């Protein structure tokens, strides 16, 4: 007696954004599923489901990506359409209005039940730093979007795969075997597959650290005022202008509940060591 399973679609939920991924190609669906394997699989009762589909392109080995039947990308190779899916889901996840959450462009990790949030623009070292923290045993919340509940200031998990750009591969070599994306310039690393990888539950924010990668510099962790932290977090808040006064008040509460620092990163190992010691002693 034999049975054959046919995977038609996989459903995920990221910060309330619920989406199905289906594909004409089983391998591409498998790659996409592995990139999101740490996300919640069950939708909430009130969720609307957005449907992504990889359709075969006109040329062999090419695909098109659709979102709710609308084309997101013209024909491209598998890696390109997968990258587009990841980008589209990130954008939709972070740009959804939420009455209960303020969402920062930030990485976040947890040690001893306390969250360290790393808000910063692109190319500042968020993913690299949180990857280092995960390797050091921190629990993983996100490398992209820290959703802070406005009532209890807990950061919600958004455990998408770590998106490690090739500029950081040399300092995160041990992660190479765990890439599931197969892209030429970025690894996709599901944290749960790492030997030290652990996914954290929602946890209260306790540290706000503003990372800044400066090649060749010393690695320095310095306190900053809470007002400075609020200014930086404001610049990193998605849809800040949708409710600026309310968002500012929430950020002030976040800063008041936190120890606030600026981290100049020349060395990842040194940066991780400084943050590890900070959270052990503060």
């Amino acid at each position: 007696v034999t049975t054959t399973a046919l995977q038609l679609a996989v459903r995920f939920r990221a910060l309330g954004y619920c989406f199905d991924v289906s594909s004409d190609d089983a391998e591409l669906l498998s790659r996409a599923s592995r990139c999101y394997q740490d996300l919640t699989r069950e939708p909430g009762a009130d969720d609307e489901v957005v449907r992504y589909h990889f359709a075969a392109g006109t040329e062999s080995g090419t695909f098109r990506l659709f979102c709710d039947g609308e084309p997101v990308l013209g024909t491209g190779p598998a890696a390109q359409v997968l990258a587009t899916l990841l980008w589209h889901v990130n954008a939709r996840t972070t740009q959804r209005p939420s009455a209960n959450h303020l969402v920062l462009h930030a990485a976040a990790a947890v040690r001893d039940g306390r969250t360290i949030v790393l808000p910063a623009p692109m190319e500042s070292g968020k993913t690299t730093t949180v990857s280092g923290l995960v390797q050091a045993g921190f629990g993983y919340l996100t490398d992209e979007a820290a959703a802070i509940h406005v009532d209890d200031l807990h950061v919600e998990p958004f455990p998408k795969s770590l998106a490690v750009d090739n500029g950081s591969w040399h300092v995160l070599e041990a992660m190479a075997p765990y890439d599931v994306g197969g892209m030429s310039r970025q690894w996709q690393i599901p944290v749960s597959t790492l030997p030290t990888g652990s996914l954290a539950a929602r946890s209260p924010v306790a540290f706000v650290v503003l990372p800044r990668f400066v090649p060749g510099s010393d690695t320095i962790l310095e306190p900053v005022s809470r007002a400075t932290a609020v200014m930086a977090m404001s610049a990193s808040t998605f849809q800040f202008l949708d409710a600026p006064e309310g968002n500012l008040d929430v950020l002030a509460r976040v800063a008041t509940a936190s120890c606030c620092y600026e981290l100049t990163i020349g060395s990842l190992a040194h940066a991780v060591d400084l943050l590890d010691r900070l959270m052990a002693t503060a």
Partner: protein
Amino acid sequence: MTDLLTAASVVVHAPDTHVTDLDGEKVLYVPARQTLHQLDQTASLVWDCLSAAATLDEVATDLAVAFAMDKPTMLSDIIVAMTVLVDAGALIAEGGTVVST
């Protein structure tokens, strides 16, 4: 640019400016410009001293005593800083003309 503020100028908070105070530093949000401004502790103290009843000269007199600074320097610093905030729309110069930048 704002018309030049002087020692005799009176400036007041723009009514729609949203103010958050953190450890003596302020973060201001100016809705009309959709801008944020951070005030250090000294600027925040100046902010708190502004009122329709006080000229900048009177504010400088009080703060020069409080900070043991010479008054001309304090007045000069206040005028520079408040000019920035008037231009930003966070403050209103009473009787002055503000030209949007």
